[in-house]
């Protein structure tokens, strides 16, 4: 058996699958190695909520028995992974990152875990998150039961939220892939800050059964991994109709890179102001170089404007309305005061005071927004924007402070995160360079159910760059 070294911890899914099939190591060896690494280094980044070494080993031995009989179940068979601690895993604590739920135990598995288990993926641990996925609006990265998510590239900086542990664990090679969630930015932000590839699927494509609800009409689950191709493989295995999720779109997803359209046929909408004015100056060379790579591949760039709507206000109003209803028992019981972040507590309390008319107005506006946004995809195939405008903030830096300075006149795509989430659009995050030794990333946003187009562009970009292969200092 070959030794399991550092390269294995940063290997892609096809590489790990090939090694398992070739007998270079067993699934049990792999599960043991990743479990030990997760337990050893996870706390270093406050990324680990709950290690599951025994369960992992048990499942990995079943995989080995299958592999011995040549019962192959696909590229995820025998691959360790982690899930954000908002997914139910029967018999084990599911804390939602929050003290009031520290002792919470469900007697069933989230659909996503069931699906991954069915194809032989091996759950090695649950990963930390911002308390209650940060819906109340938090001021500091310390808003978590496990402390502030620390960035593997620089532990004085934040790993992003709310899927903090999912992004940090993949970046540090503690799991080959992880599942996180996004209501508004919780996949895009940590993936951008930690320099990992991640996919926010179209609303309804991945079942949320067994996941903490923050906003029924906004919540999505998606993968963090090392490559766009890995994200496609994972999405294929977790997507699909689920009668237990009322928001399920009833659609499957097949990752089909072989049918990707030629890059020269694709039109990318972008706003030059994003890259010239919005992003922090230190990040501009990385973004300029990344755009140059995409242009060389033949993709056409088209200057595009987003329809003018109050996206952030609408998203915040909808989130507050739904979150207030979901967490009313927590708020009225007074247990909300046990949360770590005071603005988050206040935000939850205030959410109960949101007038129904405001919620309905936001939901009606959302209808208009969706129609206008879909129209954009008649002229471009995808939208391109910075994942975040700057590098990860310092862990002691308040997150609700203003950006300062005079905002650029051209709004560009600065509302792309609330806009994309309101319309339920998929997004792919691609690491595209570094600034001040911290990762910088692009985000591609597509029409509903256009994940294969996003992944094709991501695959093309990653075939010409090696940013996704970079490893943080050990």
């Amino acid at each position: 058996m070959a030794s399991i070294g550092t390269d294995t911890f940063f290997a892609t899914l096809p590489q790990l699958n090939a090694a398992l099939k070739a007998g270079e190591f067993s699934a049990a060896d792999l599960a043991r190695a990743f479990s030990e690494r997760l337990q050893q280094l996870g706390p270093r980044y406050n990324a680990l909520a709950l290690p599951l070494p025994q369960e992992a080993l048990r499942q990995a031995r079943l995989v080995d028995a299958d592999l011995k009989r040549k019962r192959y179940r696909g590229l995820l068979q025998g691959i360790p992974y982690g899930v954000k601690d908002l997914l139910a895993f029967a018999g084990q604590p599911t804390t939602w990152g929050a003290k009031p739920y520290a002792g919470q135990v469900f007697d069933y598995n989230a659909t996503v875990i069931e699906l991954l288990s069915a194809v032989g993926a091996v759950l090695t641990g649950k990963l930390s998150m911002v308390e209650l996925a940060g819906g109340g609006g938090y001021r500091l990265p310390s808003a978590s039961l496990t402390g502030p998510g620390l960035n593997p590239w620089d532990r004085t900086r934040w790993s992003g939220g709310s899927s903090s542990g999912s992004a940090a664990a993949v970046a540090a090679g503690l799991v080959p892939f992880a599942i996180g969630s996004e209501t508004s930015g919780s996949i895009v932000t940590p993936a951008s800050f930690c320099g990992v590839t991640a996919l926010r699927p179209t609303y309804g494509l991945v079942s949320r059964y067994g996941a903490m609800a923050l906003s029924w009409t906004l919540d999505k689950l998606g993968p963090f991994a090392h490559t766009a191709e890995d994200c496609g493989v994972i999405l294929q295995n977790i997507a699909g109709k689920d009668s237990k999720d009322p928001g399920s779109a009833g659609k499957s997803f097949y990752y089909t890179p072989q049918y990707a359209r030629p890059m020269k046929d694709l039109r990318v909408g972008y706003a030059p102001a994003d890259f010239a004015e919005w992003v922090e100056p230190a990040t501009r060379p990385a973004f300029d170089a990344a755009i140059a790579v995409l242009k060389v591949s033949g993709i056409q760039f088209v200057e595009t404007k987003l329809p003018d709507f109050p996206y952030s206000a609408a998203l915040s109003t909808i989130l507050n309305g739904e979150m207030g209803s979901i967490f009313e028992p927590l708020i009225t019981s007074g247990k909300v005061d046990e949360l770590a972040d005071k603005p988050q507590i206040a935000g939850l309390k205030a959410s109960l005071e949101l007038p129904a008319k405001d919620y309905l107005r936001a939901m009606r506006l959302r209808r208009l927004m969706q129609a206008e946004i879909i129209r954009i995809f008649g002229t471009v195939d995808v939208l391109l924007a910075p994942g975040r405008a700057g590098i990860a903030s310092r862990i002691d830096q308040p997150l609700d402070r203003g950006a300062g300075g005079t905002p650029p006149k051209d709004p560009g795509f600065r509302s792309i995160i609330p806009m994309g989430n309101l319309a339920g659009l998929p997004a792919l995050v691609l690491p595209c360079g570094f600034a001040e030794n911290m990762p910088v990333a692009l985000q591609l946003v597509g029409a509903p159910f256009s994940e294969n187009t996003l992944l094709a562009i991501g695959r093309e970009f990653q075939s010409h760059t090696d940013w996704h292969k970079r490893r943080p200092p050990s």
Partner: protein
Amino acid sequence: MKLTRRKLATALVSATALAAQQPQPAAASDSDLKAARDRLQANAAALAGTPIPMATEPAFQFKA
């Protein structure tokens, strides 16, 4: 010391009165709560700026 019911009642009333007289520690979240309420109102004001046709229904689904 023997504690009669009268003494106990007096002590309780005094303690309650004392507690009421003492300045309450400023709830740390008062300003946060005001800020959260202000955000809700600011959102509502921002949304009010966009006219919505009467026929536009809310963007949620109900499947019977």
